[in-house]
Structures are given as C-alpha cells and as structure tokens.
C-alpha cells in the first residue's frame, strides 16, 4: 500500500498536478480573443506588461490594495491560509527528504520545525475562519455552495492529517496514509476544479491588468489603474 501510494500514485498525482495546471494556464491565454474581449493584447506590449505586473503584484501582498486594507479580517485569514498552503508543501523537511529519495534533488531552503508548525496551524485556523465567515456573513452565505466547502476541505485536509501525523495523535500510520491520500487527491483535483485558481488567479489578474492598462485608461491616467 505504502509502496503504491508513494510510488505509482505519487508520480501520477504530481504529473497531473503540474501538467494539468500548466495546460490550464496556457489554455487560458490561447483562449483569449482580442476581438471578443475587445482588448488589443498584443499591440501595446509595454503597457500590457506594466498593467499585468502591477495587477498581480498589488494583489499578491496584503494591504497593498484598497480591498485588502478595507477588509482587514478576511485579508489576514486569507493570506494566513494561502501563504502556509503554498509554502509548507514545498519546503517542509519531511517532503524534501521524500523528494530527494524520488528525484535526487534537494533544495537548501528548508523550514525549521517551528516555522512549519506555525504555518500549518495558520492554514488550519485560516480555513476555520474562512468557513465561519461563509456561514455567518450574509454576503458570503448566499454565494456559497456545498462545492465551495468541499474545495476548502480538499485544500485543508492534507494539513489536518499532516498535523495529526506530526503530533502522532493516536495511530501514526493511519494519519500518514490519510495525509498522503488527501495530498494526492488534492494534486489530482487541482486542474479540474476551482482549485485551478492556483494558476488561474494569476492568469485572470494578468488579463484584467492588461485590459485596464491598454484599453481602459491606463495610457491616459498618471498611474494607471488605482487598484
């Protein structure tokens, strides 16, 4: 079982994840159409790149945009959740050792145990806050479907099981197996579900940045769009 999950399934899930997301990212851009979208994407590369970079950068860090400043709590919760969710899987020592066994690659940036713990907890706490927010706030509740909770669950399950394994709560190997399975489910599901926002967030922000910069006033106002 362990062999199967960390061997065959590891390769399958990792390949689906990377290839799938890569394909989605590329298809997003090949699927754009300057005439239908009414944006001269290719005619003004300087403005296009400027608008795209600004639109991604400003939203990638907390409090740089009006929204991030105004919605203090969701900003904190959302960044706590996303930062951990992206960093931990890549830089956790245990993952690194495992990857070295597989690929022979070992990168030098390793999270120390405490940081890894804190970040993982932030993911879980962030997810709890985001869930409560969905239940409590009318403007989030009306939009939320079962699917949205399911996606949140897919994202947080590897962390919960990972933490349980880390603290050896009850049966270690149960949690380890669950962790691996949920991790792989996440990897496989990402390209096919809303989890694809992992890359499509960037795609969409690049597009809207170009849209405003090239077509909607970016060339006329002093600083382009004031996100």
């Amino acid at each position: 079982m362990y062999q199967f999950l960390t061997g065959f399934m590891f390769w399958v899930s990792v390949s689906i994840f990377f290839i799938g997301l890569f394909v989605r990212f590329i298809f997003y851009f090949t699927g754009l159409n300057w005439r239908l979208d009414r944006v001269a994407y290719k005619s003004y590369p300087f403005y296009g790149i400027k608008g795209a970079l600004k639109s991604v950068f400003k939203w990638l860090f907390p409090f740089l945009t009006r929204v991030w400043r105004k919605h203090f709590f969701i900003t904190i919760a959302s960044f706590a959740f996303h930062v951990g969710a992206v960093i931990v899987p890549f830089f956790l020592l245990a993952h690194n050792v495992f990857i070295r066994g597989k690929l022979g690659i070992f990168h030098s940036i390793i999270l120390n145990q405490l940081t890894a713990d804190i970040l993982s907890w932030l993911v879980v706490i962030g997810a709890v806050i985001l869930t409560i927010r969905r239940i409590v706030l009318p403007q989030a509740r009306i939009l939320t479907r079962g699917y949205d909770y399911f996606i949140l669950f897919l994202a947080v399950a590897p962390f919960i099981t990972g933490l349980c394994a880390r603290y050896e709560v009850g049966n270690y190997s149960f949690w380890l197996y669950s962790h691996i399975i949920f991790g792989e489910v996440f990897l496989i599901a990402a390209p096919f579900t809303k989890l694809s926002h992992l890359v499509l967030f960037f795609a969409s922000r690049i597009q809207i940045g170009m849209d405003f910069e090239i077509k909607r006033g970016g060339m006329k106002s002093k600083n382009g769009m004031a996100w």
Partner: protein
Amino acid sequence: MYSGKLCSKEPVKTKEQLQALLKDTRGKTYYKEMQNLEVDTDLLWKTIQTTLNSRIKTWLEICSRCGICAESCFLYLANDKDPTQIPSYKIQSTLGEIIKRKGDVDNAFMQTAMETTWGKCTCCNRCAMYCPNGIDTGVMFSYLRGLLYQQGFVPLEMKIGAGMHRIYYAQMDITDEDFIDTFEWIVEEYEKDYQGLKVPVDVKNADIMYTVNAREVKYYPEDLAYAAILFNLAQENWTVTSKGWEETSLAMFAGDWEACKIQVKHVYEAMERLKPKRMIGTECGHAHRATVIEGPYWMGRKDGKPPVESIHYVEWVAEALRTGKLKINPEKRIKTPVTIQDSCNYVRNGGLKDITREIISYIVEPGYFVEMEPCGENNFCCGGGGGFNGIGIYRNHRNKGLTVKRDQIIKTGAKLVLAPCHNCWDAIRDLEEEFKIGIKWSFLKPLLIDMVEIPESMKPAS
C-alpha cells in the same frame, strides 16, 4: 416560434416599427407580448459556444464566492445590503445558470435575467476593481445583454434606442438635416453676441471634427451653440460632419452588437471622409466609451483605436485652458462649494480623472472644490448609467439606486455638481427632483461660457 408584433427577436428595421414601439405607452403591449416569447435555446447555446471564451469562463469558474465585491456595488449599498444585489450573485444566477443549463432556460428565467441585467447592473465596472480575482462582472453583464437582446428579452426603451441607431444613425429620430439645421439655427441665434460665430460643416482636413449626443440636438440645442462659441473663442479650425455626427450608442446599452457596429462605422466613415486631425466628442461618457474605447473593436481595428485620434471634450477643455487658447476671467471663477461627478465611462474606464482635476484648478476658486468620497476611479456610478435612466419599468430600481449618489453629494456640502456626462447629468437632475437636496448641476460648457474672456474681435459690435 411565437413572435409578437412589438416584442420579438427581430431588431427594429423600419420607421413604422419604431413608431409602433414609441406609441406603446409604458410598453403595455410590448411586455404583454413578452410573456409569450419563446426562448430559442439552441440558438442561445450555439451563440454561447461561439462567443464565450476563456476570460468569462474562467471568471465564472474561479469566483471564490467570497462576497468581497458586495460593497463595491452601489446597488447593493442602495438596497440595504440585499445579498441578491451582490455582483457575483447577480451574474452567477443569470449568466452562470444559463451556461450551467447549456442554454436550456425558459421565458420566466429570461425575464428575471432581463430584470437583473438592466435593472440591477449599470455595467459601471466598479466591482472589477474590488475583486481579488480580477473578475469584471460589468463586462459579463454587458455580454449577457447581448444574449438577451438576441432572444428579444430587452426593455422597451433599449429596443427602441438600438432601433434608432439602425435607422437614423442616432439615438433618437433626428435626421442629418435636423442636425445641421438645428446647429446652424442655434448658432445664428448667438451670432449677435459673438461676432463671426459660425458652424463649419463638412470641412476637410480640419484640426477638429466635433461629434455630439443627439439629445443635445433635440433637447439642449444651446449646448451646440456653446460648443461652437468655445471652439471659435479658442480659434480652433473645427468642423462638424453632416453624416456620422452622433457619438453615442444606445445599441451598446441594449446589447445589440450589430447596431453598435452600424453606428460606429458611420462615424468612422465620416472621419475617413473628412480626415480631421482629431475627433472631439461632447460631454458624454458612454458616447466616448462607445465610439472611442469599444468602437474600434466592434470594427475589428487591431490597434484598438479609431481612425483618427479621438478625445473626450474634457481633454480638449483642459488643453485649451492649459495652452491659453481659452482664458478664464479670474473674477468669474466658481466661488460656491462645488464637486465633480466622475463618469464611470471615461474615468474608471478611460483614465481621465487627472484631466478633470486640471480643469477644476483653472475654473474653481481655490478652496471651493470638494472631492466626493470615494472619487476618481473608485467613484460610484451616478445611478443612471448603462441605460438605467431611460428604462420605464425599472424606474423605481433606478430611483433607489440614486440614493448612494445623493448621500455622497450631501456629504461634500457642495451646492454645485459638475457633471460632464449626459447620463450623470440626467441622473443628478432626477435625484434633485426626487429628493430635493438643494443642488445645481451643470455641464462644463455653460459654466465656461460665463467665465471665458472674449477677444475684442469677437465682441458684439456696438
């Protein structure tokens, strides 16, 4: 498939049809016929398949359903934070649902979608600035307008407006002769006050070709005279065109993409015929959006620009004041608390915020200008954009929507609101009528006319 006499999938093609629609008071027959309109679900789905590309598909898919966009929408705020007014909710429950059902929706669904599309969104694009995922719900609604229009589910006034463009190349029944006659007549009226005042028609290679909003011809001809006076005072080499003089596009509000193209093509042909150095459009937001920002794409122009450089009236005013072509008598600068309504169509979607502030620095006595909060790109829609002002059945929705602008204005303490946009101007007039908050509102032209210095050569002979 059922087709009503007034309400059908067919666009307006004849003057008679237009007349019949105009005569239908409050759309009594029109909306009654709409009850029986069938949805051509195959056509709907086929159209979606050929026109929906990765941008909108992705927007609908990756929406986090976080509701952050809620407070960006003035209609959500105006309606006591009604969750059904959240941009994401509005678009997911209409366009999102149509796509999910592969176009298999019924009459009742389409009528609700129509109400949401024209009665709950002005396509102001404010939500696009506030969505972390870069989702522009306004753009999606404008796309949905096209789908609904194609199926005949469109408010009466929008159907008429689009029809006008198809027949008169103008948003109302004003012919080319009416336009020139009115312009010449009104300019004549002012000739005695401004020596040498004239309106050059169809002059080739002029520096400026001026385009207008047909409402000016029909309801505010003085505006045409003011434009002529200011161009003459600035000693501009300008002209109007006897064909293709209308800059607006109700077809854009209606989602009649074919009529959008018909209209803008007409204007571009005038540019190509007269070869002016620049085209300057009047103080109208959506006209600028239609002819200068979106129009090039309807015409398939790869660089996204009209055939000649085209600017908004405020850009010309700023330039004329900056270069001294127009000189303001400092005594006559505005000395009452004044604010400005930033039009969504040329500020958020056209980048002209700084230009209008520059104008203010010349025409308002320092200390009297107060910004609205929020302002610039972040400003709220006036409450009447996207066709909202003109649609009878959604008048109550519109009036409710005006309260956000009302409160914004009250907070500034201003007694005068500059509104260099026809839709904004109308909305602010209506909000004053509706709520009586004691303000005046104005385009720039009439204010400038009172403030500019008149060179000796143009002063009336006495």
